[in-house]
């Protein structure tokens, strides 16, 4: 961490997360190290050791226990945080469902990383996509500034009584976790009133005993699950509201998604994460060449803003979806499946292609995006010979499935 000027620091993504945790005055942090998210726990340990963060640090023996401890602490009313990725997130998987069903506001940062085997420490979104039905709010970010801002917002959203759901802030492993950027940070005096302490609606309290984590038989189970699911859908409003308030107070916001040169675009690519920064550059260059292209960066993956997205995409002539995850044996990658349902439900019939790119940290270059846009151009004209599911930068004998 280097001070560039007042309230502007040089931070890595991991340091930005830790800095937000310190400013949020998190009560209980429970962590287990895993590359590339480890530096977050190291930094928080340092804050605690120096007395800069008055919180309990539980250095547990697994990610499974990290999230379990967060649930226990949040059930008492503490503000809690954990961080992980990849295998660690998968080990937590079972407990993710329980955190959301018990309606405890856990905030978790995920430095997205691929899943073994083969063992690989580099970025893709397979780890997060494996959690997409766990009823968590899932935020994806494009920059280090954004991960800091979203982390601050996350506590506010999760603890809102209309939400009371856990949140996962996804930031690309290495690309964001280890890259230093200038970050405009808020002062502690600005963060405190933005994240007020509220008495939770229920908590473990000897004076007012509750039973938490009860058995729900067929006569009640369905209602419990649907209520939590509905709360997730409805949280979109709160996410947007908090983002707008953040903008009003601090001058920055991100929206549910953001559009880049989409106004008159005929061909667009939708995607999430830092690679969309590269997509923006490709769009900028193609625009100079007179191509009517655009990019839509999805920031909030769950809840999925399908109604809003349908309106944005309906007038396109061709749509590509770039995703850093697979859904083996399925119709398409996870985000693509969501978008296909969105298009169908809104009777939007535009040619689409699913681009799988950047698995296990493989580079996604400006040239790769140029190729994707060219292919979409061919698709629009009915001249594409490639299958609907196409792999970017793959070495394969089957040339037609590779861009």
């Amino acid at each position, binding site marked *: 961490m280097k001070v560039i000027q007042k309230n502007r620091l040089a931070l890595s993504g991991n340091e930005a997360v830790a800095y937000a945790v310190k400013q949020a005055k998190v009560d209980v942090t429970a962590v287990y190290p895993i590359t590339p998210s480890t530096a977050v726990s190291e930094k928080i340990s340092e804050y605690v050791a120096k007395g800069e963060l008055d919180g309990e640090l539980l250095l547990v023996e697994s990610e499974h226990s*990290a999230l379990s*401890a967060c649930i226990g602490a949040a059930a008492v*009313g503490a503000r809690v945080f954990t961080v992980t990725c990849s295998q660690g997130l998968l080990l937590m998987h079972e407990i993710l469902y329980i955190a959301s069903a018990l309606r405890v506001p856990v905030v978790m940062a995920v430095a997205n990383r691929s899943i073994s085997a083969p063992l690989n420490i580099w970025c893709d979104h397979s780890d997060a996509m494996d959690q997409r039905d766990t009823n968590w709010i899932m935020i994806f970010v494009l920059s280090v500034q954004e991960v800091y801002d979203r982390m601050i917002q996350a506590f506010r959203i999760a603890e809102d009584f209309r939400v009371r759901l856990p949140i996962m802030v996804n930031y690309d492993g290495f690309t964001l976790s280890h890259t230093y950027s200038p970050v405009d940070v808020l002062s502690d005096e600005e963060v405190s009133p933005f994240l007020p302490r509220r008495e939770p609606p229920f908590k473990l309290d000897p004076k007012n005993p509750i039973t938490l984590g009860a058995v729900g038989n067929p006569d009640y189970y369905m209602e419990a699950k649907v209520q939590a699911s509905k709360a997730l859908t409805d949280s979109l409003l709160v996410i947007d509201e908090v983002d707008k308030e953040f903008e009003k107070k601090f001058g920055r916001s991100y929206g549910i998604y953001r559009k880049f040169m989409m106004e008159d675009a005929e061909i667009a690519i939708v995607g999430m994460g830092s690679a969309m920064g590269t997509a923006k550059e490709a769009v900028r260059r193609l625009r100079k060449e007179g191509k009517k292209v655009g990019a839509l960066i999805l920031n909030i993956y769950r809840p999925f803003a399908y109604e809003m997205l349908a309106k944005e995409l309906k007038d396109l002539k061709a749509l590509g979806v770039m995703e850093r995850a697979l859904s083996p044996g399925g119709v398409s990658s996870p985000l693509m499946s969501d978008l296909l349902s969105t298009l169908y439900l809104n009777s939007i019939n535009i040619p689409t292609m699913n681009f799988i790119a950047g698995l296990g940290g493989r580079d996604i270059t400006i040239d790769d995006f140029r190729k994707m846009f060219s292919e979409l151009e061919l698709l629009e004209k009915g001249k594409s010979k490639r299958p609907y599911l196409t792999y970017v930068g793959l070495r394969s004998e089957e040339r037609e499935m590779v861009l």
Partner: protein
Amino acid sequence: MSKFKLISTIKELPIEEGFSPGHGLCAGCTIPTIIRMVTKIAKGNIIVVSPTGCLEVSTSVYPTTAWKIPWIHVAFENAAAVASGVKSAFSVLKRKGMIVDDPFVVVIGGDGGTADIGIQAMSGMFERQDKVTYICYDNEAYMNTGIQRSGATPYGAWTTTTPFGVKSIGKAVLKKDLFSIAIAHKVKYAATVSIGYVNDMLKKLSKALINTPSFIHYLQPCPTGWRFDPALSVKIGKLAVQTGLWPLLEYENGKVKVTVSLTKRLPVTEYLKHQGRFKHLFKKYPQIIEELQSHADELAEEYGFSPLVSTPI
């Protein structure tokens, strides 16, 4: 904590209950007994964490609950981790002046959730010296799922996954030694307890609440899984101790001591004969009974019990 008093007889327990009747545990199950005792000793100033298991499914079927004190269940293998989180939250919130209470945090879980799937979380909690009391009610198999062997199932016992037959004597290996495992973590206090020795149990529960991290290993005679008359639970608990198979021990200040010594030690057959899970040993595998007797003899030597096996009264 200053008001806390060590309890050593039932008469000293407050009348207020932390646990209600009407739960769904089996007739003859003695899990409610230890829960009532520990919640009474804590005078309701307690948070109980339970892993998935008999206790959990029988006491918390929505919209009812048997718990009059705060209780949380998250999953099967993580009760100790949840308890660490609960305790740390109380510590920090009290320090920050946001709450006034700092209750006892107690895990009450079965042998599966403790000796097998939950041992990692428990080991972590002990190693961190988190201020939690862990009580394992050990009914020596996965009773909630219907009597499958666990790491705590004793040698020779029948379960649905260790049936006896020409190629099987029942469970072919010894029970995991949880008491020693806890001690190896340098917990502040550990003890074995039995439903047959209630005053001994009360004293140990009192100590376990205030000397944390602590571990209580409770042999929980299970009429359903062990195949005996539900009226005999307390007797079976006593016989386990009197045959030397379940020594009543205490670990304190770095030393293990025997809290109930045996001057008259009964043969192990006195304990085994009441239980259907050992029936096949009497018919087909007398050598296993001899091995179990040798095991009890070894324990007797270790803990200084009567070397002689007395004739049953």
